[in-house]
């Protein structure tokens, strides 16, 4: 009888321990991959876009200060990428097209940032723009020439870039919504175009 009770207690404790372990490990069953956890943390922390110098496809240099008063939707890519980046940018283009024209350039600017400044000079970026009908004005493509500044941005926004053996990079992808004050406000799933576009339009309408 005594044995029986010990056994039952042990089973109950086991179940509790297992559920507790899963709960802690997944932030309360909300994040099953490190990527989701990263996004959740970013949305909570709302980091400021660091003061880095961007150089765009028209060879203009500026910081994010020049977008003050406008929301900015950002992606991170490198143009030599053949896998995720083209899909990311195609989806980015679809979001761009789904935003009412009156908002474009006024309320929101699209920005593609390359984390491969060595290869992605303004000329290369200009070529890359043509694939996605980016106008270089309301949807800009830019690199960050200074490696240290680039690193500070990638760290702040949790973009993990690992060089791979074929001269390319492995990296995580998302749409980053930076608000008018220059703070990261949301990280959107780049595979769900409809949800991203609804969020952005809703967010812009709320502000007006």
């Amino acid at each position, binding site marked *: 009888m*005594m*044995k*029986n009770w*010990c*056994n039952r*207690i*042990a*089973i109950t*404790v*086991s*179940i509790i*321990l*297992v559920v507790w*372990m*899963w709960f802690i*490990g*997944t932030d309360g069953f909300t*994040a*099953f*991959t*490190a*990527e*989701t*956890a*990263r996004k959740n943390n970013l949305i909570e922390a709302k980091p400021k876009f660091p003061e880095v110098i961007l150089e765009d496809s028209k060879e203009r240099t500026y910081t994010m200060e020049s977008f003050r008063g406008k929301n900015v939707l950002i992606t991170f890519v490198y143009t030599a990428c053949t*896998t*995720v980046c083209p*899909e990311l940018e195609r989806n980015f283009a679809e979001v761009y097209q789904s935003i009412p024209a009156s908002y474009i350039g006024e309320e929101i600017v699209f920005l593609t940032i390359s984390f491969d400044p060595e290869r992605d000079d303004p000329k290369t970026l200009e070529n890359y723009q043509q694939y996605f009908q980016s106008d270089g004005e309301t949807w800009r493509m830019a690199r960050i020439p200074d490696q240290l500044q680039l690193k500070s941005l990638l760290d702040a926004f949790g973009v*993990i870039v*690992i060089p*791979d053996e074929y001269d390319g990079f*492995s*990296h*995580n*992808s998302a749409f980053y919504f930076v608000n008018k004050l220059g703070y990261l406000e949301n990280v959107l799933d780049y*595979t769900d175009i409809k949800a991203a576009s609804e969020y952005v339009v809703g967010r812009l309408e709320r502000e007006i």
Partner: protein
Amino acid sequence: MMKLAILFYILLLAPGTREGLESVMVLHMFLQLPLLILVGILLHGNRDWRFLEKWNENGVAGMLLAVGVLIFWMLPRSLDDALTEIGIEVWKFVSLPLLGFLWRNSWRKIVGIFKSFLYINFLSMFGLLAWLYLGTPVQICNNYLINEQQIVGAVYLSIVLVSILYLLYLVFVRGLEEEAI
């Protein structure tokens, strides 16, 4: 046995082996984790562990905990977190030997139906993971490259295929032979 287990454990903890195994996803998943489980199995050895006769009488409690730990380490996130968070890394070196220990203690105690359940559960779980890792164009683990996760997927798939073949062998070759006798 016990000395061997401790020796093994120290070897796995050594900075050189630890970093070496963790730098490649497939080694991390299919060498370091199983070896840590093996440490637990060796630690258990053939001893009685009297107190567990009372607390793990029918093996269910131990098995539930062991399976829970195993599933935890199948979450893509755990592998990533072990690399970036020291707490999770420590937990890995504690929980996996414990898993092996409990598994060794519980496996002979549990009844057939529970065993069948575990077989089916692991077959489907590994199949799901193989499909996940092989099929997705997205990087699941932030700290590893995409082609590494495809290798992991391929290993999962091989495990599933070999297991299925083994089960078929059990049922159709051994099972029919036994019937003939």
